[in-house]
């Protein structure tokens, strides 16, 4: 299985993702410069964290028009896997691949912390190696991570089980106190209706290498690996 990690001017978590997929999981991985147009060799596209195009205008607003993103939209439309982390999540909402938007944190702070996240759905490639309602600890680092969706969109998200991750207390309760940034319904990550495109504010790639003391994020990448190797075996 081949991973591609998009690199925009201002991306800064691209190498961390490559370290996970290439070095820890031993999968072929290449970095995809934002001007590239052909990504047909890739099975999975990861849009990493950072400040693409300086976050000018709005986070992700300009990256969305890059050639690599146009190719990623086509990749997603073929049902192939896409993961957007942090700034990558913002790019996915700006490009319309995921609903809603990410706005300024409720308390205006840039938050850099480790938070508890509850896994809401485990029947997707991405989340299948987690237990239902499992509480994991993942790092967050963002100034604009407050997920917003209007009531109609929120109802759609719920109706199609598109909420994948919620901020929660260490014991798994989803409440206002456990909400670091003011996101509606404590939403930390969602998927599209088909389930092949996932966006999340927490950084699983920063919680994958045992050296760093937390491997709660590695399962996400392992889940994808498992599902694709099963598909490969069936093909």
């Amino acid at each position: 299985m081949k991973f591609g990690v998009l690199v925009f001017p201002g991306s800064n978590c691209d190498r961390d993702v490559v370290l996970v997929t290439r070095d820890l999981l031993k999968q072929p991985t290449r970095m995809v410069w934002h001007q590239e147009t052909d990504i047909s060799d890739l099975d999975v596209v990861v849009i990493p964290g950072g400040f693409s195009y300086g976050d000018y205008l709005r986070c992700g607003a300009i990256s969305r028009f890059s050639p690599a993103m146009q190719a990623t939209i086509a990749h997603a439309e073929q049902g192939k896997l896409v993961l957007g982390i942090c700034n990558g999540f913002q790019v996915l909402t700006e490009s319309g691949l995921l609903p809603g938007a990410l706005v300024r944190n409720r308390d205006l702070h840039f938050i850099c912390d480790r938070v508890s996240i509850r896994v809401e759905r485990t029947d997707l490639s991405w989340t299948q190696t987690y237990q239902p309602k499992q509480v994991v600890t993942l790092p967050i680092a963002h100034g604009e991570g407050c997920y917003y969706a209007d009531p109609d969109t929120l109802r759609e998200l719920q109706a199609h089980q598109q909420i994948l991750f919620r901020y929660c207390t260490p014991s798994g309760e989803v409440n206002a106190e456990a909400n670091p940034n003011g996101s509606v319904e404590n939403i930390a990550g969602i998927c599209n209706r088909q389930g092949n495109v996932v966006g999340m504010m927490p950084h699983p790639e920063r919680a994958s290498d045992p050296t760093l003391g937390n491997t709660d994020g590695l399962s996400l990448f392992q889940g994808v690996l498992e599902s694709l190797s099963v598909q490969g075996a069936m093909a």
Partner: protein
Amino acid sequence: MEIVTQTYQAKIYVTLRPSVLDPAGTAVQTGFKQLGYDNVGPTRIGNYVELTVSAADEAAASQQVDRMCDQLLANPVIENYRFDLQLAPAGAAK
């Protein structure tokens, strides 16, 4: 035959939708309170953009600016926009 175009200046205002929280606006409002302005109500912060376009007429210019706002300058999920359009003074935006 030469195609005659005019240069128009657009003044574009992008504001957060009323339903979206504006913590920065709230912080500024608090600042006013600290300065002693107790009579200041809800404060909202948005973006202001100035640009020029050349177009055959005002309708064409207006249509294009509207599309540019919808595509890039505003995110319709969280923002509204409006703009004023006028003929740019001669010599502007060359």
